[in-house]
């Protein structure tokens, strides 16, 4: 698997003129990498993800997945978003195996044996995520963390070449978030899935990634490409290691520098107090 982003540009055309969201952006991601995209709000990191997913069209440049140009959305690029987007009329199990009944996916599991292995995989995924007692539950009966687990299981069940995650844990409470991070680490290692991960949370990015791409503020361009030296086996302990703190510090500095500072702020604050 090789994902290549070449000179990617995105301009939103508005009535008041064009708003560039991405400067020419180039990077590539290899098999099994866990790459986080971080940057200030509105820097185009989510846009990049949607462009790779094929849900939006680039204004210029191209995206290559295994040397084939990405033209539209497809089953080889799974997506998990902050809002879980489960199909509310399907049970947990039916949600997780939604992709199996689609024509595009029937091609590569023709024989009954192949189908059985895939279905078996869905059960293992759900069990691994602690959902074994909720196969027949409907999304509205689940907590936020559980919904997001189903969404991840649904995307992984389809065995995408690359999994795109847009702030997947943004809506979860701190404790569930940590649980989900460890679960995702476990899964990405086990499934050897390549993951592109958009987040606001610098600590989350350092903890999960093998590489971090730092974006500038809008229009987004690549500021830095930081490799994360921790190995595959990560535990909460590394969050306290000096190396971890050093990386976190460096990222925070980069982001603070990018955040547009309001020079007028002090004057405004004084006005507010009066």
């Amino acid at each position, binding site marked *: 698997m090789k994902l290549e982003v070449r000179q990617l540009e995105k301009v939103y055309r508005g009535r008041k003129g064009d708003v560039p969201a991405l400067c020419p952006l180039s990077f590539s991601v290899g098999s099994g990498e866990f790459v986080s995209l971080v940057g200030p709000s509105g820097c185009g990191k989510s846009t990049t993800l949607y462009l790779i*997913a*094929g*849900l939006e069209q680039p204004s210029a440049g191209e995206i290559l997945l295994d040397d084939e140009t990405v033209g*539209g*959305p*497809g*089953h080889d*690029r*799974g*997506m998990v*978003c902050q*809002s879980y*987007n489960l*199909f*509310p*009329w*399907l049970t947990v199990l039916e949600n997780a195996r*939604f*992709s199996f*009944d*689609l*024509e*595009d*996916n029937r091609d590569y599991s023709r024989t009954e044996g192949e189908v059985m292995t895939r279905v078996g995989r869905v059960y293992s995924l759900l069990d691994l995520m602690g959902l074994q007692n909720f196969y027949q539950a*409907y*999304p*509205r009966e689940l907590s936020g963390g559980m919904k997001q687990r189903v*969404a991840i299981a*649904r*995307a992984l069940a*389809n065995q*995408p070449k690359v999994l*795109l995650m847009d702030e997947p844990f943004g809506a979860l409470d701190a404790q569930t978030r940590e649980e989900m991070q460890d679960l995702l680490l476990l899964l990405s290692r086990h499934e050897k899935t390549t993951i592109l991960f958009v987040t606001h949370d610098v600590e989350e990015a350092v903890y999960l990634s093998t590489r971090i791409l730092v974006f500038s503020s809008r229009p987004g361009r690549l500021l830095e490409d930081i490799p994360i030296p921790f190995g595959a086996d990560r535990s909460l302990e590394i969050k306290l290691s000096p190396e971890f703190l050093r990386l976190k510090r460096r990222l925070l500095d980069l982001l603070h520098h990018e955040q547009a500072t309001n020079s007028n702020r002090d004057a405004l604050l004084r006005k507010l107090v009066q």
Partner: protein
Amino acid sequence: MSRAASCRARRRNSVRSPWLEVRGELPPWAYKGLVALGFASLFFGWWWLSGQSWINPVFVPTPAKVWHTAQEFLHDENLWLDIKSSVARVTAGFLLSAAVALPVGIFMGAFKVCEGLLQPLTEYVRYIPVPALIPLLMLFFGIGEAAKIMLIFVGVFFQLVLMIADEIRRVPHELVQVSQTLGARRGEVVRLVLFRAALPGIFDALRLCNGWAWTYLVVAELIAANEGMGYRILKFSRFLQTPKIFVYLILLGVIGLALDFAFRKFNRRVFHWADATKR
């Protein structure tokens, strides 16, 4: 703080009564009691009015008189004939419009091309009052069953098709996107996501439009018919038989309410997965 202000503050902080809470909930007994109260006051209002000396009993018959008339009706085969033919007309007109509106509405909601082609056109036709079309419908379809069914069809279809298209458009776009990243093709997105997600709303639209079907049924039967509830009411009116009119009006209301109830029950059973507000 002035006394009035502190008083107000205290009132604001005290435990509030659930009765007038904005979007508050009531216990089921209270809700059912209110329903009964509403119907009871209508009944007693009627009862009181019919007993007044300045009211002509020919125009407002007493409840007792209407009750006796209703009992006589039990042995009147015309009543059953009327109900049967009216229900048959409504069902035919309603099913016909649903069968056409469903695919057309789905396409209008799913594809901008169909929307551009059909939506403004539908809006335009919708504003032509249906009774204004009666003379034309009579020219086209005569005065038989076909004309009545077509009137119901025209009355219901143009409302229904817009409501269905709206329901399809209301499906969150994220659901469409997520299905596409799982490999869903165009037809599958429409069939497996848009249609399924909009189904509770579509059934609610059908429930509302069933009411329209009954309205246009009576309009159709007032024009030309040999039997049917609307036709019979007109005939009773010619002979000043107000108690009979009352019986038929009550029956029309009961049939409508029963159908509505059946639709709601069905929705709640089949679409238990949906939010309570959408069922």
